[in-house]
C-alpha cells in the first residue's frame, strides 16, 4: 500500500472541495432540498401503500348460503375453501351468530327488538391471502353450489386498488423527475469546479495523466456533494418525522399513520443510493464534456 499516493489523492480532493466551498454548499443544499422532497414523497407513498394494503388485508368475503342449503353442501363449501390456495381462512357464521353480531353493531342506532325472526342466512367469512385477489376469489366463490350471494365491499376494494396503482405510477414518474433535477444541479456545480481547475487539468493532460485519473477527484467530489446532501436531508427529515408524524396522527386519526410502519432505515439507504449515484453520474458527465473539448 502506497500511503503517499493515497494522501496525495485525498489531498487533491480535499483541496478541490474546500477551494470552492461556497459552490459546494450550494450543491449540497440543492441536493438536500431535492432529497427532502424525494424522501417526503417516498415516505408518503410508503404510507399510502401501507394504509391501502392494511385496509385491504382487513377485507373479508362474506359468502351467504342459500336458505335451503343442506349440511352436505356446506361441507362441500368448506372443502372447496380449504383446497383454494388463495384463501387464508374461513369461518362458518351460523345465522344466530350473525344476528347477534348485527344487534351488537346496531346497538343504540335502531331498535333491534323489532327483529322478531332472523332474516339472515348462514354465511362463511373468508380471509384471502393476497388482497389484490379478492375480486377474483369472490367471483369464483359465487359460482359454487349452495351459494346465494357474495359480498366484500366491492366499491371500497376497487377504490383502494385504484389508489395503490395511481400512487405507484405517479411515484415512479416523480422520482424520475427529482433525480434528473438533482443530477443537473450537481453536474453544473462540478462543471464550475472543473472550469476553476482547467489549468490543472490541462497540465495533468500535458504530463500524461490518464482521463480516468483526472476524472477521479471530480467523481469523488460529486460523491461527497451527493452524500452530504443526503446526510443533511435525512437529518431534516428525521426531525420532521419525529415532530410532525405524531401531530398528523393526532389531527387525522382516520389516516392511521401510526399503523403505517414505514421502513425508515431502508428508505434512508435508498436516499443515500440515489444521492451517491446522482453525484457520480453527474460529475462523470460534467468532466467528460470538458475532457473531450
Amino acid at each position, binding site marked *: 500500500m*502506497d500511503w503517499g*499516493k493515497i494522501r496525495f489523492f485525498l489531498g487533491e480532493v480535499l483541496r478541490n472541495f474546500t477551494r470552492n466551498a461556497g459552490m459546494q454548499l450550494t450543491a449540497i443544499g440543492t441536493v438536500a432540498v431535492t432529497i427532502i422532497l424525494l424522501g417526503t414523497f417516498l415516505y408518503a407513498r410508503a404510507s399510502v401503500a401501507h394504509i391501502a394494503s392494511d385496509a385491504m388485508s382487513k377485507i373479508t368475503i362474506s359468502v351467504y348460503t342459500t336458505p335451503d342449503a343442506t349440511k352436505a353442501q356446506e361441507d362441500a363449501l368448506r372443502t372447496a375453501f380449504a383446497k383454494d390456495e388463495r384463501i387464508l381462512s374461513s369461518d362458518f357464521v351460523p345465522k344466530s351468530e350473525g344476528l347477534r353480531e348485527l344487534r351488537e353493531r346496531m346497538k343504540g342506532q335502531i331498535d333491534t327488538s323489532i327483529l322478531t325472526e332472523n332474516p339472515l342466512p348462514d354465511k362463511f367469512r373468508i380471509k384471502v391471502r393476497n388482497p389484490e385477489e379478492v375480486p377474483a376469489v369472490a367471483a369464483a366463490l359465487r359460482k359454487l353450489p349452495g351459494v346465494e350471494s357474495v359480498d366484500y365491499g366491492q366499491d371500497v376494494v376497487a377504490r383502494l386498488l385504484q389508489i395503490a396503482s395511481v400512487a405507484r405510477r405517479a411515484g415512479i414518474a416523480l422520482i424520475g423527475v427529482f433525480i434528473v433535477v438533482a443530477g443537473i444541479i450537481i453536474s453544473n456545480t462540478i462543471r464550475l469546479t472543473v472550469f476553476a481547475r482547467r489549468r490543472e487539468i490541462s497540465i495533468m493532460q*500535458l*504530463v500524461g*495523466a490518464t482521463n480516468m485519473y483526472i476524472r477521479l477527484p471530480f467523481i469523488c467530489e460529486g460523491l461527497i456533494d451527493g452524500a452530504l446532501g443526503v446526510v443533511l436531508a435525512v437529518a431534516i427529515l428525521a426531525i420532521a418525522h419525529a415532530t410532525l408524524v405524531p401531530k398528523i396522527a393526532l389531527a387525522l386519526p382516520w389516516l392511521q399513520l401510526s399503523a403505517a410502519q414505514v421502513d425508515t432505515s431502508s428508505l434512508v439507504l435508498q436516499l443515500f443510493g440515489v444521492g451517491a449515484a446522482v453525484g457520480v453520474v453527474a460529475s462523470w458527465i460534467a468532466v467528460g464534456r470538458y475532457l473531450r473539448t
Partner: protein
Amino acid sequence: MISLRGVSLVYPNGVRALDGIDLEIGKGDFVFLVGHSGTGKSSLLRLLYREMFPSSGDITVDGIRVDRLKRNRVPMLRRHLGVVFQDFKLLTDKTVWENVAFALQVTGAHTKDVRRQVPRCLDLVGLSHKSRMYPGELSGGEQQRAAIARALVNNPKILLCDEPTGNLDPATTTEIMELLGRINLKGTTIVVATHNQAVVDRMRRRVVRLENGRVVTDEERGYYFLGLGQDQILSG
C-alpha cells in the same frame, strides 16, 4: 527519434498552418525551429505531443505513430515527452517541489520514485534551495527552471520547448539556454521553437526555418537568418 513525412495541418477555417513538412530529428539532437510568429512553429510542436491532429502525413515520435494514436493512448505518448512553454504553466498554489512532483503523481507513480526523481530534477536545474517556495515568489528564470524540472521528471527522451525564453530578459535567457544545453549533453533530444535571434546565433545548433507552414532551410550549426540572403540580414 522524431520523424515527419508530408505533414499538413489545415484549420477548420481553411487556414493552412503546415504544408507538406518533411523532417527527421535524430536521437540526442538539439534543433531550433525558427520563423516569424504564425509560421507554424507552435503548431508543429503541438502535433508532436498530440495536442493537435495532422490533416495528412505521418508523424513518428520515439517509435510511436502519433498520427494514428488512439485517444486513450495519448497519456502514454506524453510520458515520453517533456514540454516547456513561454508562460511556464506552473500551478500557483503549489510549491516548486509540489509542481514537479505533480507531474509524477498524476501518472500514478510510486511515492518512493517521487522522492527520488524530484530532488534529482530540482538539483539539475539548480532550484533545490527554493523547492518550498511558490511560483509567485520566484523570478521568471526560476519559474522556467521549475517548469523544465517538471518536464524532465518523467525522464523523457525528448524535450519540446515552445518559446521557452519569450518572457525572460537576455541574461536569464542565456542561463536557460545553457541549462537546455546541459540537458542535451545527457542525451535528451531537444526541440526549441523560438524567434530569438541572439539565442540561435550563440548556440550554433541545427536550425530549421519555417515560412508559411513549409520548411525553407535546414542547416547544421546554423544561424537564425542563414539561407535568407545577406542583404536581408543587413536590412532586417
